């Protein structure tokens, strides 16, 4: 057996060799059994590649295997995964790849990736820690499901599936997890988007939030507004986006 460096150094070297773009023969040899460490490198990379492809299938198809592989290699080389949760690995890839995707000549590409990842995340978000909830009341803070993402996109990436003839937006999306655990996407108008945004977190009663958003949007709180708001709240309660008011 070759003499190995101290454990910590050995482990850092091993990770480095798995993740760097072009490891040298010497990189493998310092790990001991060079031939088999090559096997490890390909296993580690294949596994990480698979989870990223599972999270971003449409983005990968749009990019093609080679370009996706290039983003993947750059990510591993420059910002390898720092999460222990395998399902969160694609979040790291996207964070790293987004500036590059935003430069692409297809102006919708970055939005597509952001949208895919938002739906991936919504399916997993932990919704078990919500405060005790009672019937919806305007005098108390509202409680929303934690399994909700609000996403603004410039293109209608949430509509077309096979073709890429997206319409120019903006589109304000609410992506939430349904009771049967699907990620469901709704388009909101700008006022509704601001309302939902204002309903997350905080201690203000619902009335205050509605008043503030209406004021910011120069919208009169008239009969029509109240009717739409009532319909929206009823719909959101039905879907499980609004859970009620804080008890």
């Amino acid at each position: 057996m070759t003499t190995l460096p101290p454990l910590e150094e050995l482990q850092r070297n091993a990770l480095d060799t798995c993740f760097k773009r072009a490891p040298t023969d010497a990189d493998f040899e310092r790990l001991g059994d060079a031939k088999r460490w090559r096997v490890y490198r390909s296993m580690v990379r294949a596994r990480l590649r698979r989870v990223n492809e599972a999270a971003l299938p449409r983005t990968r198809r749009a990019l093609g295997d080679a370009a996706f592989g290039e983003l993947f290699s750059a990510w591993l080389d420059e910002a390898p995964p720092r999460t222990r949760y395998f399902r969160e690995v694609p979040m790291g890839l996207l964070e790293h790849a987004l500036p590059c995707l935003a430069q692409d000549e297809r102006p919708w590409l970055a939005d597509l990736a952001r949208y895919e990842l938002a739906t991936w995340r919504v399916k997993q978000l932990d919704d078990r820690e919500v405060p005790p909830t009672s019937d919806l009341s305007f005098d108390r803070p509202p409680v929303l499901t934690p399994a909700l993402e609000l996403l603004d996109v410039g293109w209608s990436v949430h509509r077309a599936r096979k073709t890429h003839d997206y319409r120019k937006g903006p589109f304000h999306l609410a992506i939430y997890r349904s009771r049967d655990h699907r990620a469901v996407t709704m388009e909101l108008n700008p006022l509704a988007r601001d309302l939902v945004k204002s309903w997350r977190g905080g201690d203000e009663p619902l009335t205050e939030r509605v008043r503030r958003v209406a004021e910011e949007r120069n919208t009169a709180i008239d009969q029509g507004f109240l009717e739409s708001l009532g319909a929206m709240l009823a719909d959101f309660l039905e879907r499980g986006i609004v859970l009620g008011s804080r008890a």
Partner: protein
Amino acid sequence: MLSAVTASFPNGIGLGLRFDMARRFLDEQPDVAFVEIHPENYLRRGGLYRELLDRTLQRYPVLTHGLTMCFGHSSPFDRDYLHDLKRFLREVRTPWHSDHLCFGGAGGVFAHDLLPIPFTEEALTTVVQRFTEARDALDVELAFENVSYYAAQSDDPLDEARFCVEVLERADAKIMLDVNNVFVNSRNFGFDPRAWIDLIPPQRVVQMHVAGHLVRADGLRIDTHGEPIPDGVYDLLEYTLRRVGPRPVLLERDNNIPTLEELLAEVRRLEAVYERALETTGAA
């Protein structure tokens, strides 16, 4: 001797809860002795996985098997993870928790794979210290799993078993003995798997794993958990059960997951092996 808690867990053949088969499995609720889960799949997560877990807990005893604690890791523990894990282990009422004798990352970076540690004194010290620290933090019986590895870590492959024995003794630890991993290593490195098993003190074994593996064109065997269990692994399981006595045995199948019928057929074959092995020891 096994502790009272350990000894009261149902012995026999269990299945791993995997997403691809979970819904049908839980709809049909076939007879298996227990279900094994990976906490990392459920920690800080809601949605379908959580629902599947809740349904599992209503019907089956559960054992937990971690993926990222990796006792050979040289970086310090993530306290938040240990805290979340401790809470989770209580919630699912597992009598012990296991994780792997390997490393899975370095300096905050995760490989999401099980990487081998050298069988050196330095690694031994690291493992014993880390194992003890984790057991103290989790306040639960803890076991390590021997892994499949592909890069030679010693001139004598039985050093792996000797290393395991040292950890067992120095840390007063338990082992989650993966019979398939012993078999895979024995073929990749050319040793007698029974000699490996013979070195392990039977009373330290809390649980076993069996699985299938891939044989590559170049002969290298890879622990994929994606193939049916080969005859050699059935034989080695029978040998190990005769030596160790009744323990929970998990069929691991993580890839190429077949139909539930096929999985259960494997469980039934394992049950037959289990019964036969324990009849001859009079321990069944």
